[in-house]
């Protein structure tokens, strides 16, 4: 499957420094995003350390399958999902150790959301309140669970989603990298379907731009880099209260040849009914 991708990060309209960090490694199909926190410039240190550790550990694992795997893994996971999860555990440890050695960094932390795409298999690893979304057949779906207090309250049926969006407690996280010597990492695998579009973003996007608008931008702008830039611009137009980072990854169509050409023609005719399946 042909993969196209693009990413944009911006300081926003209010803050003076950008504590977000992201990395796209197209040759590996690896996409990593982190949102740092902590006083002075230490959020930047934490998110950069997180992204660098994840990319490096995954790359080393590709070259050396015997490289140790950190943290708990599930038996059903592919070696890549295990490696990705391991890299997040390692990033947690690096940030925690660095803060322990440098008292001025005390309290620094970071979110981390990473996806690794190989053929039609998608591995996801995640800690914090950055998000991964998938746009499939016109519908946007969040792939990751926010590790925030309000999201946990929604899962427990205490808050509604609307109440969570208005809550003043949105910035309270239950999990982040660097807060404890080890961290619970969410990891899972999904099959990737042709025409799926993936989006990773920091909360600077989702606090400013609504999900139907995100879905709209992904559907109307075929170039991933341009779509990412458009979403970042929209977050800034709304006030840009936080740093905002967006990565978009677009899966191509399955096959070429005249059979797929026929199917495309069929799709064109069904599109005439105006069905996009979105909200």
């Amino acid at each position, binding site marked *: 499957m042909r993969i196209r991708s693009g990413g944009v990060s911006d300081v926003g309209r209010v803050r003076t420094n950008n504590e977000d960090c992201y990395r796209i490694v197209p040759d590996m199909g690896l996409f990593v995003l982190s949102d740092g926190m902590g006083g002075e410039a230490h959020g930047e240190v934490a998110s950069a350390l997180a992204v660098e550790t994840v990319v490096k550990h995954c790359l080393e694992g590709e070259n050396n399958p015997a490289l140790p795997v950190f943290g708990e893994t599930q038996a059903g996971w592919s070696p890549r999902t295990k490696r990705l999860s391991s890299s997040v555990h390692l990033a947690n440890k690096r940030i925690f150790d660095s803060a322990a050695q440098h008292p001025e960094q005390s309290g620094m*932390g970071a979110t981390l959301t990473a996806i690794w795409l190989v053929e039609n298999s998608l591995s996801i690893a995640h800690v914090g309140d950055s998000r991964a979304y998938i746009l*499939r057949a016109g519908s946007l779906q969040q792939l990751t669970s926010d590790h925030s207090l309000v999201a*946990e*309250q929604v*899962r427990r049926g205490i808050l509604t989603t609307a109440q969570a969006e208005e809550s003043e407690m949105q910035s*309270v996280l239950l999990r982040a990298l660097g*807060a404890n010597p080890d961290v619970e990492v969410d990891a899972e695998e999904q099959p990737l379907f042709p025409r799926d579009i993936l989006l990773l973003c920091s909360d600077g996007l989702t606090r400013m731009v609504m999900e139907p608008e995100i879905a709209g931008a992904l559907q109307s702008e075929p170039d991933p880099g341009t779509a990412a830039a458009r979403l970042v611009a929209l977050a800034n137009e709304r006030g840009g209260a936080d740093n905002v980072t967006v990565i978009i990854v677009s899966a191509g169509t399955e096959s070429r040849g005249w059979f797929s050409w026929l199917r495309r023609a069929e*799709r064109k005719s069904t599109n005439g009914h105006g069905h996009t399946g979105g909200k």
Partner: protein
Amino acid sequence: MAKLSLMFEQRLVKEVPVGSRPVSIGRSPDNDLPVDNLAVSNYHARVYFEAGRLVVEDLDSLNGTFVNDMRVERATLHDGDSIWIGKHHIKVDATHDTALPMDYGRKANAPRINETMVLDTKVRRDMLQQAAAMGERTQFAAGRLKVPTIIVLSGKTDQKEYALTNKLTVIGRSSLATVRLKGWFKPVMAAQINQRDDGYYVVAGDKIPTVNGSPINGPVRLNDGDLIEISGVRLNFIFRE
């Protein structure tokens, strides 16, 4: 506790709390909120809690139920909404149901938190315990342990039953689909069932499924026992104990 206030013009007629039992609204005097007006059906609508959300449901009334300005069959209610029935309206007060007690000694600087912070383990445990206690009080915790399951009632699929363990479930002919439809002319991706924080949603694929007979218009949250029809296959969504 959420509260409904029946108003006629600016005058308060009656106020009732919404608890575990639905609040019925209609012209018949045995309703919890009787509305004495010929434009109102005998049993017009009801309001109840469902998975933590306050919901209004129209009971096939003749003149309809409106939330703010929109006619609805069923809608989630938010604090400050108005339900219009004939010339009466019902004000929704849901402010007090959800506040989690936050008395862990930080009240002074609790109000607005702009900087992201991480709860340390002890505070986190305390808060989640409080949250769990509230969850039990509102009777939602028990429902979480059930396994969402799709049972095939008719149509050709590769299995007769599917436990929805994955966040994303695709129904279609694709070899990657969870619920695989058999037959050459079936759509590759007919529909999807996706897990969100507040439940399971059926979502369109290349086709539009129906839920309990009505075609969906955007993602629809599934309830225990719902019937989904897509591309000649009938599926029953249940929560299995």
